C-alpha cells in the first residue's frame, strides 16, 4: 500500500512525474487511456483559462471577488478523476477545476462569484455540496454524508477539501476524528498551497507535515506532490478502494502552491518573495502534465494552442451569459429560507412590495 511506503513517518513524498514531466516512478504510473488522460488535462486547462479570465473580469469590475486556483489544478482534478459518478465531492471554496471535472457547469461556478445563489444550485446528480466559506466546517458534512452512505450501504465515497490553514481549526479535528471512529468512507484532501491569506504554513502548525496529523486519529496519511496529477490520482484511487472495503478515512496532503492572490482583494507581494513564486511557477502542474502527454504522443503543442483559444472563447461566452442574468428577483431571495414561507415572512415580503409600488 502506498500509505505504508509513503507513511509520513518515513519522510517520503509520493511522486510519479517530476516537475519536468518525467516519470520518476515507473511502477506507480496508473493505467489510464488517452481519452481519460486528455480529459484530465483539458479540465485542468479549462480551469486555468477560466481562472485567468475571472481575474480579468474582476479587474474590469465585472465580477466582485474571486478566489484563484492557479497552480492547484492537479490537486483538484487528479483527485476527482479517481472518483466514480456516485461519489460525493465536498468543496471548500477554491476547487473550481475539481468541480468542473465532477460535472459542475462553468456558468454556475461563475454565478457564485458573480454573487448569485444559483452558483450553488447544482443538480443533485452531480453530488457536489455547495461551496463552504466557514473554513473546515464542510469536513463534518463529509463525515455525515459518509455515515449515511455507510449505514445505507450505498457504496459511495466522499472526498472533502480543506486548506493548510483549515487544518488548524477545531472543525477539522472533530470531523477527521468522527470519520475515523466510525470507519467512514471519507477522503480528506488537504490542499496545502503553503498560505492561508498572508499566513504561511509554518505559522499554522509545528507538525512536520500535515500528513502527520493522521496519526492522531489512528488513520493513514500520505504526503503527495499535489502538482502531479498522476500521483494525486493513484493516492485517491487507493484511498477510495480502502474506504469501500470499510477501512475508513485517509488523509492526503497535496503539496501545491497558490500562484495567484488569495482573492482578488489580496496583494501577495506584501508577504511573499518573487523567488518563492518563481520556484513554484517552474513546478506548474499544467506544464509538466502537458510535457508528459506530448511525450506519450497523446498531445501536440498545436492542439494545445487551439484548445486554449477554444477555451478562451468558451469562457467569454459563458461569462456573457452570466452577466445577462443581472440582478436577482425579489421573490427569489425570500423563497428558499423555508419550504413553506411563514405568514409573517410572507407579510414582510408583501409590505415591501407595496412600498416599492408606492415609491415608484
Amino acid at each position, binding site marked *: 500500500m502506498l500509505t505504508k511506503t509513503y507513511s509520513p513517518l518515513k519522510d517520503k513524498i509520493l511522486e510519479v512525474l517530476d516537475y519536468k514531466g518525467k516519470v520518476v516512478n515507473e511502477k506507480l504510473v496508473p493505467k489510464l487511456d488517452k481519452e481519460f488522460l486528455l480529459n484530465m488535462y483539458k479540465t485542468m486547462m479549462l480551469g486555468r483559462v477560466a481562472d485567468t479570465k475571472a481575474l480579468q473580469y474582476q479587474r474590469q469590475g465585472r465580477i466582485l471577488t474571486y478566489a484563484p486556483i492557479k497552480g492547484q489544478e492537479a490537486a483538484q482534478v487528479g483527485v476527482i478523476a479517481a472518483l466514480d459518478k456516485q461519489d*460525493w465531492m465536498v468543496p471548500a471554496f477554491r476547487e473550481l477545476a475539481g468541480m468542473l471535472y465532477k460535472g459542475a457547469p462553468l456558468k454556475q461556478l461563475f454565478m457564485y462569484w458573480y454573487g448569485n*445563489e*444559483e452558483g*450553488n*444550485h*447544482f*443538480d*443533485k446528480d452531480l453530488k457536489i*455540496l*455547495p461551496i*463552504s*466559506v*466557514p473554513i473546515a*466546517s464542510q*469536513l*463534518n*458534512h*463529509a*463525515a*455525515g*454524508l*459518509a*455515515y*449515511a*452512505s*455507510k*449505514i*445505507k450501504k*450505498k457504496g*459511495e465515497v*466522499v472526498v472533502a477539501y480543506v486548506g493548510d490553514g483549515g487544518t488548524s481549526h*477545531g*472543525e477539522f*479535528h*472533530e*470531523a477527521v*476524528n*468522527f470519520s475515523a*471512529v466510525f470507519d467512514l468512507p471519507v477522503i480528506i484532501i488537504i490542499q496545502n498551497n503553503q498560505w492561508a491569506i498572508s499566513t504561511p504554513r509554518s505559522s499554522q502548525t509545528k507538525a512536520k507535515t500535515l500528513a502527520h496529523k493522521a496519526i492522531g486519529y489512528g488513520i493513514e496519511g500520505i504526503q503527495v506532490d499535489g502538482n502531479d496529477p498522476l500521483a494525486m490520482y493513484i493516492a485517491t484511487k487507493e484511498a477510495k478502494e480502502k474506504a469501500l472495503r470499510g477501512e475508513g478515512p485517509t488523509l492526503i496532503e497535496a503539496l501545491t502552491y497558490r500562484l495567484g492572490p488569495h482573492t482578488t482583494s489580496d496583494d501577495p507581494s506584501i508577504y511573499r518573495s518573487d523567488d518563492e513564486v518563481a520556484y513554484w511557477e517552474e513546478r506548474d502542474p499544467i506544464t509538466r502534465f502537458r510535457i508528459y502527454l506530448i511525450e506519450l504522443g497523446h498531445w501536440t503543442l498545436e492542439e494545445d494552442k487551439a484548445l486554449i483559444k477554444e477555451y478562451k472563447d468558451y469562457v467569454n461566452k459563458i461569462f456573457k451569459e452570466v452577466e445577462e442574468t443581472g440582478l436577482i428577483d425579489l421573490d*427569489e431571495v425570500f*423563497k*428558499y*429560507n*423555508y*419550504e413553506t414561507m*411563514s*405568514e*409573517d*415572512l410572507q407579510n414582510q415580503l408583501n409590505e415591501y412590495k407595496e412600498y416599492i409600488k408606492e415609491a415608484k
Partner: protein
Amino acid sequence: MPLMTIIDAVKNTIDQQMELNDNVVTFGEDVGFEGGVFRATKGLQQKYGKERSFDTPLAESAIIGSAVGMAVNGLIPIPEIQFSGFVFPAINQIITHVARYRNRTKGTYSLPMVIRMPYGGGIRALEHHSESIESLFAHIPGLKVVIPSTPYDTKGLLTAAIKDPDPVIFLEPKRIYRAFKQEVPTEEYIVPIGKAKVVQQGDTITVVAWGAMVREVENAIKLLENEKINVELIDLRTIQPYDKQTLINSVKKTGRFLVVHEAYKSYGPGAELIATINEQAFLYLEAPPTRLAGFDITIPLPKGEHHFIITPKRIANEIKKVSSF
C-alpha cells in the same frame, strides 16, 4: 391511553418515528448505549441497532455538522445536545449551515433534522446547565424553534418537527421532564409548529409563556383565584415562527399583556412579542405590555438560584400590577 411524562413522550415519539421510518437516526454524547443522561433515548440502540442510535465522540460541532451531511444524504437525523449550555461549540454549524442550506442551494437540499436539547433553570445544577437561550436561535432565519410544555404537546410537536422538511431546534424544559403525567395517545399525531395554544380563556389580561413557565403561570393563576382577574393564558409552543394571530387577537380582547420567560430580559424573547403587539394592536393597549423575565445576570449557582427563578408569587404580583394599571 398511557400516562406519560415529557421525557416519556420524547422517547415514545423518537421510538415511533424510528419504527415508522428507517431513515430516522438519533445520536449524541451518551445517547446510544445508555440512552442519554436523561434517558430520552433509552432502549433505542437495543431496538434499532448501533447504526441508528449511537454514541458520538465528545464534539458538538461534529454532532451537528455530521447531521447536515446525513440529512443531505437521505437520513432524518435527531442529534441530541446534552444540555443547551453545551450547544455553543456547535453554533457555527447551526448558524452558518443548518439554517442556510436550503437557501444556499436554492432548495436543492433541505435539511430535515431535529436538534434536541434540554434547557432552562430550576434544577439546581452546575454552571452551564440552566440557561434559557431560545432567542439566540429564534433570531436566525432558516431555523424553527419549538418548546413544548406538556407531554401531549411534546409528542405532537416532536412528531411535527421530525416530519418537517426544515431544521427544527427542539428545546425541552428539563425542569418539568418528570414533573407530571398526562394521557398521551400511542398512535402518531401532530401538533402543528407555529400554532399557540390558548390554555385558558380570559378577558382581563393576556399572559404568554412557554416551556416550564407555563406551569408557573398556571400556579400563579391559582394564587389569584380570589381576585377579579380573568387571565387569558397562551402557551406559545413555537418561538419561531410564532403565532402572531392568536397573540394579537387576545391582546385586542384584553388590552393588557404580560410575557413571562426565564431567558435574560435584555434583548430577550419577550421584547419581540411586545414589539409585535405594538405593531399590530397598539390602539387596543390599556397598559404597557410588560416582561417578567430573567435578570440580566449570569444565572447563579444553586445556592443563589432562587433569586433568579421566577416564582408563581412574582408572576401573580405582576399580573395584578398590569391588570390594575
